[in-house]
């Protein structure tokens, strides 16, 4: 893939200069070779800082939520996975389509800074592709105003639900032991919630005091309820961007629960991919079929 940075900068510059957008969200090169953090710019002369390299892994779309009341228009760069998150936010009516100028970037996979650090690599070519990119089904943006670069082919290989099936094969006690070992690590830092495009409520249920869903104390029971609740709130809405798991400082396999839910929704209610079509019908739990499976009798 050729470096689209030049085109990105040129376009961003034009958009800011002619006043079509008030700001641009993209990526810039960080202080370290394995970091490309988000970049927020409002002036045309800053556009030279934009990059789209191996480490432009962050989804930028949840930053749009910070501006949802500003009335300003944002130009935003999206990869395939990010674009589905954007569809999620648009479908949930959190921002208006007109308030965002979407610049699509086909993506053949990014790299995870933490893997770069832990692998002891000294340059990008030595770093393996990020875990979440290995299962990518939508490398090309599903929504955009303009696209930069050639479409790339999805490289998802193998069974998307392999890890889920491995867990399913365990006994109940083994499953519980597995999950408690994971959830007991949780710090309740809420990074997964904060990065999730499906977690776009203004006030989160966890922050409401009447009734209080979670105790303030950090214990296993409440950690489990935290993760189950969040997964259930995202059920049928999760766009599989994998950001929750990527940002988790404790390495909790958050997507293994989300993927289980995706698998079951497909099994129970028919094929469904969240965040792919902007004008699709309500998410699976916001609708029903009279012919849905009947197990309750």
């Amino acid at each position: 893939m050729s470096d689209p940075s030049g085109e990105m900068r040129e376009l961003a510059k034009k958009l800011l200069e002619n006043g079509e957008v008030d700001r641009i969200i993209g990526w810039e090169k960080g202080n370290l070779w394995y970091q490309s953090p988000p970049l927020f710019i409002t002036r045309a002369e800053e556009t030279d800082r934009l990059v789209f390299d191996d480490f432009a892994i962050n989804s930028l779309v949840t930053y749009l939520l910070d501006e949802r009341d500003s009335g300003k228009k944002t130009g935003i760069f999206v990869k395939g996975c990010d674009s589905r998150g954007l569809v999620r936010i648009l479908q949930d009516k959190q921002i208006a389509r007109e308030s965002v100028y979407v610049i699509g970037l086909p993506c053949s996979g990014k790299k995870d800074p933490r893997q770069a650090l832990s692998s002891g690599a000294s340059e990008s070519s030595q770093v393996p592709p990020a875990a979440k990119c290995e299962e990518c089904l939508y490398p090309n943006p599903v929504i955009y105003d303009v696209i930069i670069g050639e479409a790339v082919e999805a490289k998802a290989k193998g069974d998307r639900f392999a890890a889920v099936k491995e867990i399913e094969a365990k006994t109940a006690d083994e499953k519980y032991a597995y999950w408690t070992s994971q959830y007991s690590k949780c710090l309740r830092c809420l990074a997964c919630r904060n990065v999730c495009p499906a977690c776009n409520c203004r006030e989160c249920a966890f922050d409401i005091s009447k009734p209080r869903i979670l105790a303030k104390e950090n214990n296993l029971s409440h950690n489990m309820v935290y993760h189950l609740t969040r997964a259930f709130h995202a059920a049928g809405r999760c766009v599989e961007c994998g950001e929750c798991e990527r940002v988790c400082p404790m390495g909790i396999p958050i997507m293994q629960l989300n993927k289980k839910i995706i698998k079951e929704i497909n099994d129970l209610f028919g094929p469904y991919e969240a965040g792919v079509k902007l004008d699709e019908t309500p998410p699976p739990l916001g609708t029903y079929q009279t012919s849905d499976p009947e197990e309750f009798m």
Partner: protein
Amino acid sequence: MKRVGVFVCHCGSNIAAVVDCERVAKEAAKFPGVAFSIDNKYMCSDPGQDLIKKAVEEHHLDRIVVASCTPRMHEPVFRRATENAGINPYLFAMTNIREHVSWIHTDREKATEKAIDLVRMAVAKVLHTVPLEKSSIPITKRALVIGGGIAGMQAALDIADNGNPVVLVEREPTIGGKMPMLDKTFPSLDCSACICTPKMASTDQHPNITIYTHSEVERVDGYIGNFQVTIRQKAKYVDHKICTGCGLCETKCPNKKIPNSFEAGMGNRTAIYKAFPQAVPNKPIIDAANCRKLTKDKCGVCAKVCPTGAIKYDDQDELITIDVGAIVMATGYDLFPWKEAYGEYGYGKYPDVITGLQFERLVNASGPTSGHILRPSDGKEPKTIVFIKCVGSRDDVKGKAYCSRTCCMYTAKHAHQAVDKIEDSHVIVFYMDVRTAGKGYEEFYQRTVEDGVHYVRGRVSKIYQLGDKLIVRGEDTLLGEAVQVNADLVVLATAMVPSAGSGEIAHIVGFSTDKDGFYQEAHPKLRPLETFTAGVFLAGACQGPKDIPDTAAQGSGAAAKASAVLSNRSMETDPLISQVNDAVCAGCGVCVGICPYRAIELKEITQRAGGKTIARRVASINSGLCQGCGACVAACRSGALDLKGFTNQQIMAEVDALCL
């Protein structure tokens, strides 16, 4: 500090025989928030209710818990008692220690423990209640009836007789619906037009009824008592205020070969026309698509001959808005489009294979053949006539799974008429079953059989033309042998389906349809005339296939329902409905699609955020429409929605109390 009073009822010995009520009351006294607790022989009796009042005075109680029988029975009684004691009636909780404890358990210890748990849960719930007020919504004393067939006319007349104004909207240029097309009605063989057209005239002349024909309902907003309806009066090109209905224009119109839908395609009409001589209103309209003046700017004969100058070629559609308090749906039925489905009957390519409704026109004295049964192809009188029942009905492969209910009887009537009118006729009916549930119906069917009509049990598998005969092949399943009839005319008893466009109008008015597109009643047994949308009622075949007596009965029934709504100036609404916390609501709108009552919409609010005023959209509950099911609440992720009386906090408190 909240002060709860707990009252444990013995219900004579109904509860006390199994539950140690005294112990329950003693335990309850220890629960947090409980200021007073007592057991009593009969809480629902006057002394029992007085006990609540006295206890409230003496112990300054502000919340009441009664542990007794099922709240499905006495909750209103104890709410009133709470109110009489000077406490808001919703600061009350009831728990069931009779049906759910004493009547189903024998172990006194365990039953008493369960009763204590239940009281603890009720106390926990009542601690989180807030005072609620019933609200009142005004009622517009006017009804809308959609559809002017027999159901709609009956409903309109009955509502109007009740003293309330009615607006009747009919899509066709005349009211009357399908009934005036019929010749005779089973089982009495009354002339259909003779009993239907007076009803049309009464409807037209009733001072409380306003009729809009050639009109459609385009938009409905609002809710029970307060609907705003927009009606599109389609251009008629004839000023009915001036027109006298003399009919001269019709005789002079040069375009005379337009198939007349009133004749079910068996006869023609002109471009300026009345559907039939007794049409109401008895004034013509111009069919714009077939008028030479309106399509090609030629002709103009009608305007020249009209003695009153009523022709208005520049007429436009007009939008009329009215407010109504209740709506009756009476949109009727259409016939199943058999030509698209039944290849074995020729897909409609044989002119002498007709429907029952076409047969009605053939046998009708005012029809295209003046009541002589003549076959469409050559105008000859058929001698051998085959009737086929269940065409599209009871056929889930090609048609509909349901029974259309009327076909057995009208086919018997047709067969009887054929035998009666045609000498030496040979009439065969192919049937699956003969269903004659109705007053005098079985007797009529037996008479038809005695008349000499030959009933063959079996489906017809093939019809084809051979010379001037239709070869009808089927099987007599009772004899187990193949049957072939060389027929002159074949009449199909086609299924009833919802009328064209009925789904769209259901969507406009805002209620649901069933799997076959018929209108969904609120309960199949006990609320057959209501929809899930308060203030919208159903009458006639729009709800499912039915005959004239059932249709008329439903028309009257729906009118009674609508009149009950209109009988008051205002109505109280239950406060146990959903509410929105605007500050929390993100306006995602998932609740909007879940609400079965269309009670939620997104409305714009302004609020202060980040030091400035912003406008954004949040969910908003219409208290006239919300029925308090709580489906939206469980779907709301943030907890912005809550159900008054069953709040998240109340239910969580009950759950917690169970395990304290």
